[in-house]
């Protein structure tokens, strides 16, 4: 038999490249089925493919494999957050104060509503607060990719993306600050209580700043050649994602900061606008398949009621925040409601935060997961549909 050892042994050992191909193709097939047969956003198909393959389905994609695929997920998130950061325009917020007010209001009200609702239903304040902080954020990945898929542009699309960028940052900062409370709860020393959030925030921002500075210098040196700028930025994005992970910083904040700082620091307009979408698409598909694979349908049984409370309270908070100022902001009547609907998705980021919490304090993480992950599961499927509905209704998709 030893003469046949050039043949593979079965079962095949897990291989990242094989895994990537499998995830990509299954997600792609799911996306096309959702799009062609059900007229749903492709993302719903990617997530469903993940659900079918994952722990709640056939069990082919278990947690171990999902962890191996994390590198692709991180790259996908990095690309999306960088792009989102580049869209966050401080000048716009300065010129349209009502947009800034809308943003503050929807963050504050969604936090407040979720917190109060959960506390009312007997969830302990600490858990309610962390869940509320997570609820503040809208999924950047879902909103950006649905907008990209529909080739949407217009006031609802642009405003939604800016609100998403801000509420992602606010959610992250809130959650990081609550970390102190968690540390306190688990009797960690006061030094850890203070230094961990500070390390996360300043470290991630600093990483974003260094990457921006490098991008601008490179861009100036390269001259105005879009294809060169694309490769250079892709390289820096992947590098920054890797650095953030290695230094135990926040990929989310670092990459978002990279995008924001690069946009606002580039006074000479040395950097070109590049289209990351086509290159990123394969990572984006894998991101959603893996997300779907880790979701547990079983959670719905136990956490379904709490999830509904969370989702409703969150929607009420965001809607009041957006509708309260829609009239003053320069958009057509009716657009305010659509904008609120476009903020529905909540996803990947929440899962990452739950797992981060689990890594630190497993018991805390498990309790939090029970509250948050069912809501994520529901919104992971409804969210893309809500965004598609809002952007189509607003007439901002390509004809």
């Amino acid at each position: 038999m030893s003469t046949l050892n050039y043949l593979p042994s079965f079962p095949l050992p897990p291989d990242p490249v094989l895994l990537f191909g499998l995830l990509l193709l299954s997600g792609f097939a799911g996306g096309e089925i959702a799009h062609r047969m059900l007229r749903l956003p492709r993302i719903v198909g990617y997530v469903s493919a993940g659900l079918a393959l994952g722990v709640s389905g056939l069990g082919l994609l278990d947690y171990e494999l999902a962890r191996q695929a994390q590198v692709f997920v991180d790259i996908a998130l990095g690309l999306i957050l960088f792009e989102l950061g580049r869209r966050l325009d401080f000048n716009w917020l300065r010129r349209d104060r009502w947009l800034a007010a809308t943003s503050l209001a929807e963050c504050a009200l969604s936090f407040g509503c979720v917190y109060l609702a959960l506390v009312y239903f007997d969830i302990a304040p600490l858990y309610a607060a962390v869940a509320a902080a997570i609820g503040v954020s809208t999924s950047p990945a879902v909103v950006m990719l649905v907008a990209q898929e529909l080739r949407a542009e217009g006031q609802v699309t642009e405003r939604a993306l800016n609100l998403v960028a801000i509420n992602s940052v606010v959610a992250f900062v809130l959650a990081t600050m609550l970390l102190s409370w968690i540390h306190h709860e688990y009797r960690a020393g006061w030094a850890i209580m203070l230094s961990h959030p500070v390390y996360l925030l300043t470290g991630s921002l600093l990483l974003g700043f260094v990457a921006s500075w490098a991008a601008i210098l490179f861009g100036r040196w390269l001259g105005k050649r879009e294809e060169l700028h694309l490769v250079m930025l892709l390289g820096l994005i992947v590098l920054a994602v890797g650095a953030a992970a290695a230094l135990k910083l926040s990929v989310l904040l670092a990459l978002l900061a990279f995008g924001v700082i690069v946009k606002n620091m580039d006074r000479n307009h040395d950097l070109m606008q590049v289209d990351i979408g086509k290159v990123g698409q394969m990572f984006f598909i894998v991101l959603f398949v893996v997300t779907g694979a880790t979701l547990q349908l079983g959670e719905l049984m136990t956490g379904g009621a709490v999830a509904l409370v969370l989702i409703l309270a969150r929607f009420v908070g965001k809607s009041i925040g957006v509708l309260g100022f829609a009239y003053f902001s320069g958009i057509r009547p009716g657009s305010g409601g659509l904008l609120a609907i476009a903020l529905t998705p909540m996803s990947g980021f929440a899962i990452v935060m739950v797992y981060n919490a689990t890594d630190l304090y497993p018991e805390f993480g498990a309790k939090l997961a029970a509250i948050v992950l069912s809501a994520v599961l529901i919104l992971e499927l409804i969210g893309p549909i809500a965004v598609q509905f809002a952007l189509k209704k607003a007439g901002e998709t390509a004809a």
Partner: protein
Amino acid sequence: MTEETLEFRTSAGFSMGVELELQILNSRDYNLARDAADLIGMLEKTLNSGAVKPEITESMIELNSSIHHEYGALAEELRRIRDVVAESAARMNLRIAGGGSHPFHKWSERRIYPTERFKRLLEVYGYLAKQFTIFGQHVHIGVPDGDEALYLTHILSRYVPHFIALSASSPFQQGEDTSYQSSRLNTVSAFPLSGQVPFVQSWGEFLDYFNRMRGFGVVESMKDFYWDIRPKPEYGTVEIRVFDTPLTVDRAALLAAYVQSLARYILTERPLAPSRDVYTLYNYNRFQACRYGMEGRLIDAYTQRHAAIKEDILDMLRVIAPHAAELGGGDALGQLAGEIEAGRTDAGWLREAYRTRGSLNDVARMQSERWMGSALANI
């Protein structure tokens, strides 16, 4: 079909009005945006009705001045409208730019503005309707009656190359340098009903022509003629449509002042009689102006003289100077002459912007910064 009477309304002599078609850009890569409806909705709250209108695609907006008799008041109104429009656009994170063409947008990405008329144009003209995302300035001059309108139209046709060279600001199209100073007019020429008014002298004859065309079913109203210069009976004006939208409203006001003084000269001194030769040479002269701008060669149908368009304009500015002074536009014409002598044109400015920056995104950005001016910085 409603019967159009085409009765020619009387206007106060040498009154003028300006329409400007402008580009709506996003502030990310400065490609054309699609926010016309939202922007118009916001502007209607602040500007008087009729001051802003939609155009054929959702990336365009049309601004209209009111009726003016003097250059100074027109320039002031245009600047005021500019400030309001710039401020509202900035609030929506949009940019507004002048110029006859967007340097790099792709026509296939354009969307027709959803009104019945524009949808019908898309049905009739197909891709030409989307390619019509080009930006012109129209100048109206008031005349007392239809006969005068036709006379003025025929004589102004001699000066069409002037108007083209003075306003040329569309050197780039679809991401390429076209080598033209005004590439916009090539797009207009593709339309079957573009061209010139028929060679008729009286309003009665013109009505015969119009009714014949309507009888054939070729047109329904005057709007269907895309002529370079056309009488506009319901306003009581002659409308000149060959101008590219200049990069600034100040330049737009200067161009209107030039037309106004020229019209006064033509209608009060009656220096020339309408001539078929003007139309024989028309396309040659028009091409020269589009391709070479100020350096183009113009053949004068009346004298057979060949001259650079630049020289021909400078000569004309001297001839009409007394009329400009009479109308309060002396300074304006002086300014225009100064620009010509210094060799400054909008097309030249755009090419220089591309040369220094190396990217058409930057050109579009600078175009919008130039048009919005201090309004962008101040809010």
